[in-house]
């Protein structure tokens, strides 16, 4: 008597195996896509170059010049966030542009897992590039600013990461970039078209501070600075005048995190319910 063994039902992979495959796939895509190879170095270059240029242009001629050396040395983040946003938008919108999304979702039908894998890879890449960028800016600031009046004689201790407030500003800037990346990923997942997505992200980031500055009512100005993702998030860079900030540094980063969570949720929801 011969019997053919009954074909074993293919066991569904546990979620963590799915997640592992998704991470591996997204890592391969991110590693080999043309954009990544120059966008991440661009994050570093933009941060250090703008931070160094602003530091070079800034002078503190006397004590109490009202300037925040941490903000000056880390001002390159204002530009770097745009590069991070491009990277994030390309990770998802690039797939819609080329039709790659069909392949991705056939191979990985759990759409939320796919998005989570993208988010994880993006966060890792941005954290690495951001850390290098911020360390470069800190170094540039340390070399340039004391010669421009930011020295103990004018009431500014020399910039050092051993100083808790400055460490918070520097580490917070890295977190800020990571959150901006995720915010852009969420928006791009919802919007899909790459040009529209980057327009929406940069509009959301840059418009609030522009409008807040033009509004002459101090009441509204303060509120706008409390809810704007960029203004509130960058409060993490403040090291002077802490008691007059519209929002305290960690709470500000929290506001940005809330925007990011909202964008990612909206993106994930639309990804699940929409036809790809």
């Amino acid at each position, binding site marked *: 008597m011969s019997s053919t063994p009954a074909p074993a039902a293919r066991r569904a992979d546990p979620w963590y195996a799915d997640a592992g495959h998704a991470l591996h796939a997204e890592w391969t895509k991110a590693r080999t896509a043309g954009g990544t190879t120059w966008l991440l170095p661009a994050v570093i270059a933009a941060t250090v170059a703008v931070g160094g240029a602003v530091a070079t242009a800034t002078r503190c001629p006397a004590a109490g*010049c009202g300037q925040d050396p941490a903000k000056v040395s880390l001002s390159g983040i204002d530009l770097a966030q745009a590069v991070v946003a491009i990277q994030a938008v390309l990770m998802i919108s690039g797939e819609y542009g080329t039709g790659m999304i069909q392949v991705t979702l056939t191979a990985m039908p759990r759409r939320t897992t796919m998005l989570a894998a993208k988010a994880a890879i993006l966060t890792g890449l941005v954290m690495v590039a951001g850390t290098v960028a911020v360390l470069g800016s800190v170094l540039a600031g340390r070399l340039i600013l004391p010669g421009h009046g930011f020295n103990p004689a004018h009431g500014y201790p020399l910039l050092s990461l051993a100083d808790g407030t400055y460490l918070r500003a520097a580490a917070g800037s890295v977190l800020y970039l990571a959150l901006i990346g995720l915010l852009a990923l969420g928006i791009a997942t919802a919007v899909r078209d790459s040009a529209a997505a*980057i327009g929406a992200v940069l509009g959301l980031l840059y418009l609030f501070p522009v409008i807040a500055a033009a509004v002459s009512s101090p009441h509204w100005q303060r509120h706008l600075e409390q809810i704007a993702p960029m203004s509130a998030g960058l409060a993490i860079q403040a090291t002077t005048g802490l008691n007059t900030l519209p929002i305290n540094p960690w709470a500000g980063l929290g506001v940005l995190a809330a925007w990011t969570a909202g964008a990612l949720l909206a993106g994930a929801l639309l990804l699940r319910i929409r036809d790809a």
Partner: protein
Amino acid sequence: MIVTPYRSRLREGPYGFADLLRAEWTKFRTVRGWVIGVIAGALAIAALALAPAQQGSCNVAGCTVPVGPGGEEVSDGFYFVHQPLAGNGSITVRVTSLTGQIPVLTQSGGMRAGLVPWAKTGIIIKASTSPGSAYAAMMVTGSHGVRMQYDFTQDVPGLPGAVSAASPRWLRLTRSGDTITGYDSADGTHWARVGTATLAGLPPAAQAGLFTASPQYVQTSLGEASISGGPSVATGALDHVSLTWRSGAWAGDNVEGGGGLPASTVGFSQATGTFTITGSGDIAPAVSGGGGVGVTIAQTLVGTFAGLIVLAAVGAMFMTAEYRRRLIHVTLTAAPRRGRVLAAKAVVAGAVTFAAGLVSAAIAVVLGQRILRSNGAYVYPASALTQVRVIAGTAAVLAVAAVIALATGAILRRGVAAVAVVVVVIVLPYLFTVAAPILPYGPAGWLLRLTPVAAFAVQQTLVQYPQVSNTYTAAYGYYPLPPWAGLAVLCAWAALALGLAAFLLRRRDA
């Protein structure tokens, strides 16, 4: 049976530029997202002008500012020791000292010794004591030497240097009809003519006398361009007062026409021929910003950036969509002269965004002003011509920015990169210099001259006066370039981008 082959009813090429324009216009108007984008951009500009946050600062009583003989808003606050002058006459005085006090800008407050650069004391002939009336004055200033100033906007330098008991200054004003001539002298014997003012409509019975004024103290921290200040006060000592007409009693009045300390802190005393006059305020054109009051009509165009980002995205996509959908192959097959395709696209994108910008900026300026005023803001009046310039200029900024985005799209061929580059290149300099100024005055000025953000000068309506200390920064509506020169800078960037785009479009394989 004869079969006639199918012939398209479209006529054969080559197509003229008008056909290209028509083709590009058809592409533009049939993509729903772009049409929605243009409408959304226009709505954003109009909507932000009407937002409830549009309130003004108004720190002048009744939100009105005196108006000078030339129709401009003026500050006219000083302490005036005067008596009537009927007909012609001459007044001469010696100034031996000018000292002052400026506010301490810490939380403890109070005043400290110090003299603002345009503190002034001297002699004045004025139509009346009401703020804004015509005048001519000879004065010693805090750090600008002797000046002759008249009718608020005119300023003529005299003897340089500071005044002291060892180095006094003699001043003289001579009236003949409605002409007033100013003289100065270091010794009271050798006189030099400084200037001559013709004050149209100066009544025969004018007021003449001595005065002291001390404008707002303005401190700009060089770093963050953060501005603080407050009213200052100055005291002048004047003696050897001589009048050519039969003198009456001197009356002291605090002319309150803007920005000075309350009357309790000013006044004058007279002892042994020496007048000691303490005054606060300024006799000068009114300015916006740290040393001034009110907002300009540019305030109503807050939304320009919102519109600009949307319209730039549309402009970039108008080009990059051709590459993404491979439509560029069809386009270039139909019209092989690539430079003309680019030109046609630029004309369509520019015309559409200009029209949208014109309508929305007109709504914003016209209705936004009313809202600002009804919210209690003092809005600097601008002539109809200036308003037209601001509206048309804003539309032009939007149109040229959209063309730059289009050209960048042709250069980079990726929508995401083109939109990001255009937004960053225009917004980031604005952020660093105007919105969240982190750069000091000097480098910020160069960014405002050389980068595309220079174009926002087209929205400025205010004039910088050298005789008024103020923070003339872009944040307060003072740009380093005149309006049209600023727009020309943006146009130069557009020409550069279009040139590079045309070059690459011809050289590269599509």
